């Protein structure tokens, strides 16, 4: 990079409060042309708010925004896009049932005499995507492609809308390694064209792999900004957490427990076209990890075990007695809990308060006729907010206003409040920063020590290795390997995943 290169996007003194809680406090941010700039911070540090205020989705209370030296004040994502700031969110904001080409040219389809020139549109879509190393059928509906492809289409659309600034909000959260590499190649190519890229991620490896500069937020303030070369990893983590990280890299504690009788056992359990029949035993104090590529059947296994999807073969027993597990209600009554992967659509009830979200499952198990008194609810909410350090610590705040990590903690609290025997966690640390990550792993260990049986789905193998007593590896919707004890290592899991038919990128089903 040349010194004093052009400041493409400059934010000065960005400030925003939500109902009295400051979410951003005088934050400055500078993006240079042709730069890939990581925006990092813990959950609730203000990353999302910064992005939303800079793209006009949320009105800022104070601060100036200049793009290539010109002051701009976008009042909606659309205005921001027109000004040249495009955002691609983790949850792709496109129309799933329209074709790829239609999505790319939505609202600006090439027309002749008022009619859409479908063929022309497809030709241009193919051309556009070729620039992104993507050779797909552009006439197929977007939803028939994997999340990775959908992201690429969203980026292609954003770039084609003559974006000068591209904001990528956790684009890699659900991509596999190969897809991430592909995305990075595209990012580098775009940066070489002079586009400034803001990259929000929780994966520090990725930051060092692709970013030129790092800006760290903490508690709504600017914690620091430096080039990647000047900011060693330890220093970065210290900036993010504001304290030394002692435990994040702790290794696996040796487990030495007698095989307890399983609290829940599944034999030949499965559903045609969903997950091949499998055997699974969940023991008190044991953590079973489910590993595999995206779409390999991990989430599907979790959903079968919780009764969110009905198994069509096999048997399940809880404490020795056969059970039906036909619905989540049944699982709940048996003392199961399930934190789903899709926080927003299957987890939180956004408009209800943190308190109401936390007590929901417990109340559902007690039944409609035995309401928890407001005092009991307040007590439960306060206890878990303190225990899990949910921020801001306001039980009456609508949960939709919390950051992703804090929503996740509140969902954990929902299940912990029911005091479950079996807890199923689907990607508990997805989209969560280092600090909360370590906390959640610590929590998993603590729960396990208390004798809870855990089933954890995670795509972070290093993480699984630190807490699992048994790892089940899935591939193509079947359980293909079972690792225990010494065999649980990252290379071991990778080998099992890649055992045969390796390399094929999974398609989201």
């Amino acid at each position, binding site marked *: 990079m040349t010194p004093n290169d052009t400041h493409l996007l400059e934010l000065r003194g960005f400030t925003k409060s939500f*109902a009295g809680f400051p979410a951003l406090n005088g934050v400055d941010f500078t993006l240079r042309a042709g730069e890939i700039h990581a925006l990092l911070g813990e959950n609730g540090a203000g990353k999302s708010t910064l992005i939303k205020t800079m793209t006009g989705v949320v009105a800022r209370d104070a601060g100036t925004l200049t793009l290539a030296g010109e002051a701009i004040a976008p009042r909606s994502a659309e205005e921001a896009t027109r000004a040249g700031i495009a955002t691609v969110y983790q949850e792709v904001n496109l129309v799933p049932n329209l074709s790829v080409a239609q999505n790319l040219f939505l609202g600006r389809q090439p027309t002749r005499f008022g009619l859409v020139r479908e063929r022309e549109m497809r030709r241009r879509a193919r051309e556009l995507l070729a620039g992104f190393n993507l050779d797909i059928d552009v006439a197929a509906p977007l939803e028939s492609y994997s999340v990775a492809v959908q992201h690429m289409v969203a980026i292609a659309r954003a770039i084609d809308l003559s974006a000068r600034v591209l904001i990528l909000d956790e684009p890699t959260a659900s991509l596999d390694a190969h897809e991430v590499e592909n995305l990075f190649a595209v990012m580098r190519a775009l940066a070489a064209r002079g586009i400034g890229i803001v990259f929000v991620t929780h994966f520090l490896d990725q930051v060092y792999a692709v970013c030129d500069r790092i800006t760290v937020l903490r508690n709504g303030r600017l914690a620091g900004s430096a080039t990647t070369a000047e900011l060693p990893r330890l220093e970065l983590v210290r900036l993010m957490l504001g304290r030394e990280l002692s435990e994040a890299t702790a290794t696996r504690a040796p487990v030495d427990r007698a095989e307890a009788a399983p609290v829940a056992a599944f034999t030949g359990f499965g559903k045609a076209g969903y997950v091949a029949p499998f055997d699974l035993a969940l023991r008190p104090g044991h953590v079973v990890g489910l590993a595999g590529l995206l779409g390999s059947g991990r989430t599907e296994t979790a959903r079968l075990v919780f009764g969110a999807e009905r198994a069509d073969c096999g048997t399940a027993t809880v404490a020795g007695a056969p059970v039906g597990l036909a619905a989540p209600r049944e699982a709940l009554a048996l003392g199961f809990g399930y934190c789903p992967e899709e926080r927003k659509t*299957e987890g*939180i*009830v956004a*408009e209800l308060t943190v308190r109401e979200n936390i*007590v929901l499952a417990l109340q*559902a198990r007690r039944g409609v006729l035995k*309401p*928890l008194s407001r005092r009991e609810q307040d007590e439960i909410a306060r206890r878990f907010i303190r225990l899990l350090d949910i921020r801001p610590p306001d039980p009456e705040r*609508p949960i939709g206003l919390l950051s992703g990590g804090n929503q996740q903690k509140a969902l954990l609290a929902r299940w912990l409040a029911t005091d479950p025997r079996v807890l199923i966690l689907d990607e508990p640390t997805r989209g969560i920063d280092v600090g909360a990550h370590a906390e959640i792993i610590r929590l998993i260990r603590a729960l396990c020590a208390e004798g809870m049986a855990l089933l954890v789905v995670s795509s972070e193998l290093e993480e699984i290795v630190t807490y699992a007593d048994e790892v089940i590896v899935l591939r193509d919707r079947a359980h293909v390997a079972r690792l225990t004890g010494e065999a649980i290592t990252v290379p071991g899991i990778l080998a099992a995943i890649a055992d045969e038919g390796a390399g094929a990128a999974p398609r989201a089903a």
Partner: protein
Amino acid sequence: MTLRLPRIGTSQIIALAAILAINWTVSPQFFDIRFQDGRLFGSLIDVLNRGAPVAILSLGMVLVIAMRGIDLSVGAVMAIAGAIAASLADSHPLPVVLAAALGAGLACGLWNGFLVAVLGIQPIVATLILMVAGRGIAQLITEGRIVTFTAPGLSWFGGGSVLGLPAPVAIALAMLALTLLVVRGTALGLMIEATGGNARASALAGVGTRAITLAVYAWSGLCAALAGIVAAADILGADANNAGLWLELDAILAVVIGGTSLFGGRFSVVLAVVGALIIQAMNTGILLSGFPPEMNLVVKAVVVLAVLLAQSPRLAGLGLLLRRKRP
């Protein structure tokens, strides 16, 4: 979906007060209340009395809407219940009459609930079926005539009084209390708000969303039947063609004025009733003012627009912006 801080209903109460004040200016005797023959009389009492059927409907409708549903059939169910009550009134004892009419309403509600919760039909379509068919059923019951009755038991529901209050008002108040008890005294309210806010998440949290959906539509049917009995008792007869006609729209309007979103979630039973009173206060005011009743619909639309604008979070943001610009 917008995220709001809890409402306290200021805009609804201001709207009601404003309309009552306007009524007072067009009719200075508006707030005069007389006590006569053991019963209160006056324009204000009239508003409460005439507003009672829609208020009772809104008690059911508010829960349905909070579940992200809608019940278009309540007007038709009123007609069915009224027709049954009127046809049986002079030949059967009161408990039988009530049981038959309310039972019919409950059955209608369960039918709607079955279509929505079990068969997964969209609420607007599912209840449209009964909205159309229900009026036909009512006409079959009355054999196309206007059935009148004289039984004093049933006529009490229209003309009787409790502690000076007209019976419809007392019934509406009792139903309001009962609804509040059922919804807020148990965990049902939380379950409804959770399901309306995010049905998938609630089902995964173990909420029996299907049973609650059934119960809520059944409740709406029951409320509609009661409103139908009150309406029939008021005119001492049942007119299958006109009983409860378009009242489903008034009930939906009452709920929306009461601040419950059609997208489900948070709801307020009390404010839905306030909404029903706002509607009736307008109707009465227009009658008193001597304006042609045709004006009614237009004025109603304007007032509804005003209340909704007052609740709009965007407009609030705009107001804030204007205020800030002035130094």
